[in-house]
């Protein structure tokens, strides 16, 4: 049986492409203000913030701005691309 028999898809990052290209504003984390509450991490719909390092994967970040809006200590700013 060949591969096009059944309509099967395989899980991978970037299933819809490099979604970072959709972004108009870019979240920047100011580490000095950060209290590591992890709200940005858990509220990110795209899973692009690393739980340990809080690095943002800009290849896929769509720039929705939830992280900046929810940050309790204004450590994240949205800057124009």
């Amino acid at each position: 049986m060949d591969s096009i028999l059944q309509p099967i898809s395989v899980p991978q990052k970037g299933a819809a492409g490099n979604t970072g290209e959709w972004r108009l504003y870019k979240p920047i984390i100011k580490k000095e203000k950060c209290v590591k509450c992890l709200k940005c991490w858990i509220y990110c719909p795209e899973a692009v913030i690393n739980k340990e390092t809080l690095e943002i994967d800009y290849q896929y970040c769509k720039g929705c701005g939830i992280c900046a809006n929810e940050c309790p200590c204004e450590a994240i700013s949205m800057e124009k691309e």
Partner: protein
Amino acid sequence: MISTIREMPEEELLLSGCGSCAGCPASLALRIVGKALGKNAVMLLTPSCSVASMGMTPKTAYNWPSMNITFASAGASAAGVSVALDTIKEKKNDTWEKPTVFNWTGDGGTYDIGFQALSAAAERNDDFIHFCYNNEAYVNTGLQRSGATPRYCYTTTTPAGKKETKKNMALLMLEHNVPYIATASVAYPIDLYNKILKAKSIPGFKYIEIFAPCNVGWGFSADKTIEMGRMAVEAGACLLWEAHNGKIVFSKPTEKLLKMKDKKPSIEKYINSQGRFQKTMKDKKLEILMDIQEDIDREIRFMKERSKICYSVN
């Protein structure tokens, strides 16, 4: 059960770079589901935004074995998978752990076209979790009214505002005498996570409704998704509760609201920050706000009374 965000696992089952809109509450909710259920789960999807955004064949953003099914059949399909896994379990050795079967559907696949099959699955007490991410309209097809759309809300099929109130789906499911029902919100991830953990540990039929404010459909900016979810809960437009074996217990944020006597927060701020109401209110703003408030107050009064009745599920 967890009490801090830090306790949630790092592993992601929703992979970055899916096709959902920026700030999508469905993707956000599904991420939490992934953390709570882990890898040993099988997912079924009825047509919804989550299907449109999972990636095109041969790629998918969801790291579970998952199956796209016909719109009306979530209850039946999950039953089919669950029962088939039971037969596989019987043939395999005892150490094989049956994966958690779960449906991922929108309010259309739950409240409306999916209701018959879902009701039957609940009555049969089939072993799976049914998730409904409720964005109060058919947004995938461009914002049409659903059974979950509240009164006075603009949709393309209710351009002058919806005339009917939404149905209390979670309560309808509760009345099927099932082991576990919960309502949750993307704005309260710990509460949501704990409810999923609980559902996972209970055999039989479980229903979890996740309130999911949709910035595209509702008309607010993407970064306000969580804020909107929080406002809805604080104003009582979304009541958080769970019922294990039929006993309704209100979750903390809602419990706080119910205990308030005089200075209950009004829904004004919540309604006014959404485009979907602004379009229909126009010059009758005050009356409409009062009506919406009355819908919410009536629901609260009813649920308060209903929570006093407890039956036990066999």
